[in-house]
């Protein structure tokens, strides 16, 4: 492929490239999960990889989430660098024991002797009429667990660059890919691969309000900020990128500048990551805030199948615009 072609790609291709790249760079890396091989991945992410890397490194597993996730953890302890793919976060509930009772705490329980360098990728999110068992956004929920690192790539460059950083990390890293982004197209900056997995990034500068978001929320927020700009409201859009540990510094410095904060999260509101961000901002900047921090989240319902119901349950540019415009002194 020529350079130009390489620079413009879909989110899916970016992740595929990231996996291929890692497999080429490090012999210890392998991809394991349900249908990652013959099928090409349930979201077609690993298409062609079985042919390229063979059955030794692209491993189709039986339907055994706990078994193969634990196998990935063990393989990491044995010296490999596994990429475990769990089709969607909803099925990860069947592997919760291995992720939370083992991966997240082994280093601590062993007094620092056994770190677990496993990377677990899974699709997340709703919006595709897949109903209650296939549409959850639980990345923020996993962010409650000490010992885990939670990544939520929302851009082409992050889809392309985060995996390698995750593989280099000595501890378990969960990467959440919003399934509605797989077909999203974008261009990779020359320096794309340089991003870290510690910091949040300002994706749009603005003076009036800070929209704190991640994943699919970033795109809805950017869309909303264009609409807001037409009305003279300049929103700063912060892509959190990493939900655990959160990058307080970037979040706070944006809110200090704007004096207002809105959190956009497709996950459920109560007890979601949105509450944590709102609380941290308020604890730190109570006296600097012009108005209370707002949350725009998914309705607290199991995802309904009917399109009009599901759409009504998710944040969108309109609801973001509406909320921002109602914020105290925003026109002041």
């Amino acid at each position: 492929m020529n350079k130009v072609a390489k620079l413009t790609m879909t989110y899916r291709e970016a992740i595929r490239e990231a996996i291929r790249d890692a497999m080429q760079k490090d012999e210890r890396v392998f991809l394991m999960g349900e249908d990652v091989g013959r099928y090409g991945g349930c979201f077609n992410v690993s298409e062609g990889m079985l042919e390229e890397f063979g059955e030794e490194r692209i491993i189709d597993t039986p339907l055994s989430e706990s078994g193969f996730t634990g196998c990935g953890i063990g393989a990491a302890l044995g010296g490999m660098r596994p990429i475990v793919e769990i089709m969607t976060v909803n099925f990860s509930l069947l592997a919760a024991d291995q992720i939370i009772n083992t991966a997240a705490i082994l280093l601590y329980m062993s007094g620092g002797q056994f770190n677990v360098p496993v990377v677990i990728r899974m699709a997340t999110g709703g919006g595709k009429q897949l109903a209650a068992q296939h549409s959850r956004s639980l990345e923020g929920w996993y962010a409650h667990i000490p010992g885990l690192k939670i990544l939520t790539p929302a851009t082409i460059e992050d889809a392309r660059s985060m995996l390698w950083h995750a593989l280099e990390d000595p501890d378990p890293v969960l990467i959440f890919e919003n399934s509605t982004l797989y077909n999203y197209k974008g261009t990779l900056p020359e320096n794309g691969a340089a991003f870290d997995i510690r910091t949040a990034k300002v994706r749009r500068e603005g003076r009036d309000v800070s929209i704190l978001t991640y994943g699919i929320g970033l795109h809805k927020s950017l869309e909303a900020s264009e609409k807001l700009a037409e009305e003279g409201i300049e929103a700063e859009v912060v892509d959190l990128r990493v939900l655990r540990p959160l990058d307080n510094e970037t979040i706070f410095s944006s809110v200090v500048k704007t004096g207002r904060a809105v959190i956009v999260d497709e996950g459920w509101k109560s007890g979601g990551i949105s509450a944590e961000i709102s609380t941290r901002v308020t604890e730190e900047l109570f006296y600097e805030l012009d108005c209370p921090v707002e949350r725009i989240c998914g309705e607290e319902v199991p995802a309904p199948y009917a399109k009009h119901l599901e759409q009504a349950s998710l944040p969108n540019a309109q609801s973001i615009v509406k909320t921002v415009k109602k914020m105290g002194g925003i026109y002041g």
Partner: protein
Amino acid sequence: MTTKKKTTTPVKNTTSVDKQKKLYLLHQMMRIRQMEEEAYELYTQEKIRGFLHLYDGEEAVAVGVIENLKEEDSIIATYREHGHALVRGVSMKSIMAEMYGKAEGCSGGRGGSMHLYDKKTNFLGGSAIVANGLPMAVGVAFAYKRLKEEKVACCFFGEGAVDEGEFHESLNLASLWELPVLFVCENNLYSMGMPFQLAEAETDLVEKADGYKIEGTTVDGMDVMAVLEAAGNAVNYIREQKKPYFLECQTYRYRAHSMFDPERYRSKQEVEEWKKRDPIKTFADKLKQEELLTEEEFKKLSENVAEEVEASVQFAEEGTKEPVENLTRYVYSDQ
């Protein structure tokens, strides 16, 4: 372990099953097939969205098994359950309306294709988490036993579910506590793109069930009469012995796993080979040979079904949308 158990149940002389019954079984299989062919079209027209898992080729399983159940028995199925719901007595109209996401659907439009439910017919759906329905089936049977009700909980699942821990825990509990569960494994040789023999160390599933001291049989899932008899024996065993039973139905899925599936994992000709054993075609031919059915009657039957399908589509088209104000309704019973 007796090897007998493992061999396909020989189909006995079935004149006992009268003509009406046979035509009924054929009709039921045709209803599933034609309803799903229409659903496929409607999906390409984007009238139906989300995932859509079709049952083409597997119809004899649902028809043959469910024919043996009583009204008060219950059924626990998967996301590939349109056929099961239909032959159980859920109206085609309410199934079609559900796929449309209309308020008139059997799940009020909240479930969609993967989550068909119907209390009237004890159809407990409709779970899209592989193996997730097995513990529920065990529990339903547990309640039947405690309440001294002579009912059976019939649980359908694919062979892929056999690899999940929930299969293991469920079979052990059902056997240990002697619960009236009929475990019906629809072995269509693939779980999405994963070939059965690459997923299971022990591919003899009756041996597997024996590992839990559960009786089992393997039957040709492309032959509705064979399934009818094997399931009949299974249900009788459960009602008499008051123990669970494991029935493996060897069948095949003609279409993609869901709607998007490049099918890199199998060859066109493998699919063609299986289609030669099509449960509807072979059974119709058999009935013709037995002179229980004429080409005329077969056409007529198909037309009647086509009318039913058409009517169900119209019903779905004319269905109403659940008001958005009701979005949070049914999160809890008191809402």
